[in-house]
């Protein structure tokens, strides 16, 4: 017995080389995060209080001037509004459609892999390529979308060159491209639900809808929360499709926060002002993420109580 205890103690005690390895691994991670995350974020935060033009080697303290300027201009409100609409619509669209297609495909007896692959292809296709193809499809005079609308007797639309439609067109493309990701996540979640639950439900006379409503959906809660949170953070930072499809236009109709930030940094060479925009966006994402996590935890706590 004594011998066993000793062996147990020895097994928990780490050798010198193991400890060195752990220190190296931890230090590598710390250095990695410090160099690629903490330092740039700290530098950008500092830069937001400076008149910062790196190409001109200008870095002079201006206090809150950059923040004052961006809050003074109407572009910030416009970009913030667009970003929130974009984020909410695309996040919900992607999540609901992903769940719908996952349930549909999961219920199929044959062809699951084929359909899962088909729906997942847009996710792994480059956003640049997809944006260019959709831009062509939205072309008012030669694009195929107006052609099909005309066959259905619907008046041709101006899509990307109409300020009331441009943002929705980009959102539609993004939902189409990103739904496959949510679908795959949901399908993975569904495989973890024990089949016995459905068998029991069937014996109790549950309809398909009731089984989905009372078994599938509640048990996919963690997956849903994950998709919602990651989507929210991702779409708050939308840039590529806006840059390629509308350049923030017509006018500033589809300006998002990151596009606005990019314009200030690389269009006007004002990295200080761009950093200020970045930190306003950072604050918004932080507030929403914390709120979302709080709500989730509160519900969890209520459930366990």
């Amino acid at each position, binding site marked *: 017995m004594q011998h066993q205890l000793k062996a147990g103690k020895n097994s928990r005690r780490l050798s010198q080389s193991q400890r060195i390895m752990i220190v190296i691994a931890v230090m590598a991670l710390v250095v990695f995060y410090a160099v690629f995350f903490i330092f740039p974020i700290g530098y950008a935060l500092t830069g937001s209080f400076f008149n910062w*033009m*790196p*190409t*001109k*080697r200008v870095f002079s303290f201006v206090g809150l001037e950059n923040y004052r300027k961006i809050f003074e201009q109407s572009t910030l409100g416009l970009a913030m509004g667009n970003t929130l609409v974009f984020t909410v619509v695309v996040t919900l669209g992607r999540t609901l459609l992903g769940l719908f297609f996952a349930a549909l495909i999961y219920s199929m007896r044959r062809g699951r892999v084929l359909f899962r692959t088909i729906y997942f292809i847009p996710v792994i296709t480059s956003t640049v390529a997809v944006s260019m193809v959709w831009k062509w499809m939205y*072309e*008012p*005079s*030669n694009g195929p979308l107006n052609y099909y609308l005309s066959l259905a007797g619907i008046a041709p639309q*101006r899509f990307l*060159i*109409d*300020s009331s439609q441009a943002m929705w067109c980009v959102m539609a493309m993004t939902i189409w491209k990103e739904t496959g990701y949510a679908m795959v996540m949901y399908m993975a979640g569904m495989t973890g639900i024990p089949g016995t639950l459905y068998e029991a439900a069937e014996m109790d006379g549950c309809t398909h809808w009731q089984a989905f409503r009372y078994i599938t959906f509640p048990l996919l809660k963690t997956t849903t929360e994950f998709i919602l949170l990651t989507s929210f953070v991702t779409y708050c930072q939308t840039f590529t499709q806006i840059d390629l499809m509308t350049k923030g*236009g*017509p*006018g*500033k*109709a589809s300006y998002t926060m990151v596009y606005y930030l990019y314009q200030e940094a*690389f*269009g*006007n*060479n*004002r990295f200080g002002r761009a950093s200020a925009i970045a930190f306003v966006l950072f604050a918004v994402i932080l507030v929403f993420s914390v709120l979302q996590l709080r709500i989730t935890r509160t519900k969890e706590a209520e459930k366990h109580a």
Partner: protein
Amino acid sequence: MKKLFACMLALLMVMSMFFGASAESTREGYVNTGKLHYDLNKEVNNGEPMTLEFWVQVELEETYRKWCDAYTALHPNITFNITSGSYDDHFMKLGMALPNKTGPHLFHMHNGFTDQFMANLKPYDPAVFPLEDLREDYTFVDESLYSGNMYYQGLAVMSCGVFYNKKMWAEAGLTENDIPKTWDDLAAAAVKLTQYDENGKVKVAGFNYNEMSMEYLITAMKYELGSAMFEKDGRTPLFNDDMKKVIEWLKDLYVEKKAGSVELPMSILSFSQSTSAMTYIGTWFGGWMQANAPDVEYGFFIMPSPDGNVPAAYDRSNIEVSPAINGNVTDAEYAVINDFLCYLLSNDNFVLDFALKQYGTPTKKCLIENPDVQADEVLGTTARFMDRLIYPGNYPDSYHSNLKKYFYDEVMLNGKDIDEMMKACKEEIIDSMESTEFVSEEGRYPHADELKFE
């Protein structure tokens, strides 16, 4: 012994023939008819090897590689490591690399980046490039100086004009005599060239200024009405009644005369796809058409004046410039780079190659009458109007991007009020100019006395 001596002599003869021939071939292609002197026989870097990093825009890679190779053939101890990238990538990378001292020794420059890059550049050595010699050889010498220093030299002049589809022109019953001489002529020709579908929508535009033309057209037409781009202080954008008149004229062309439509693709694409019969764009478009739509036969004319008389200026001009030197190079590298740049700038054939590649009219005076330049419809026409093209200097990109945003997007697409947009656009340009030291060069224009600055 005699045999050995004879053999050695024969070998020496063969070697001297070989090296003699090779020395000749390295000089091949180098022609200097100007005053700027370059000594082909001078050794550089004391014969010690040196490799220079040279970043270029991808379209110019072939041209630069050719002349770098020629220079290496002349000076085998100097080699070049050329890295190319698209326009956006090239200048974005430079913007990051130069301040961080990781940039190349020399790079293809665009004068639009002068203000941004100036702190990281080294001027050309005045001992190698005497200004009086350059002035004798080139135009645009003084326009390229900053505080008396030369950071590059303009090599090709670009401007804008109207490209028209020759086949459509003939099909509409128009001849060479119908080349517009006034704005009304232009509008009439555009109406004649426009084709509509069964619903009355524009199928083929007579004139297309969509997306990347209207902003430049506004500037040109405003010049033709006698108004400068900037006020007397050289920094405040001049937005006046002439500007409003131009925007109204352009709007009228689409909305009332229905000679164009915002629903057609952007100007250059539509023209290359033959869904627009005329478009207004930079002279570079001639090269673009040759590369992307060689089957479309086009003609070119300078934007006509409002009433057929010679205006204060027909249009704006800009220059494509020689490479710039990184401010962090060592003295030895600086000396070699200056020698290389002198080799390029004194060489008529390099300047001609560069100008033809960039599709601009060469600034080297001896090349303006060059048959290749004159034979080209775009370059030849631009050369004839050079005296009435105005160089405003390296104004920031945000000037025209804001004109596009407010007058094409907001007025033409969103139907907003012209006066309100003029006010908003001016404010935004003034705000974006805060981060630059730009001052307009319009005051140096030989006919500046014919321009209004307020």
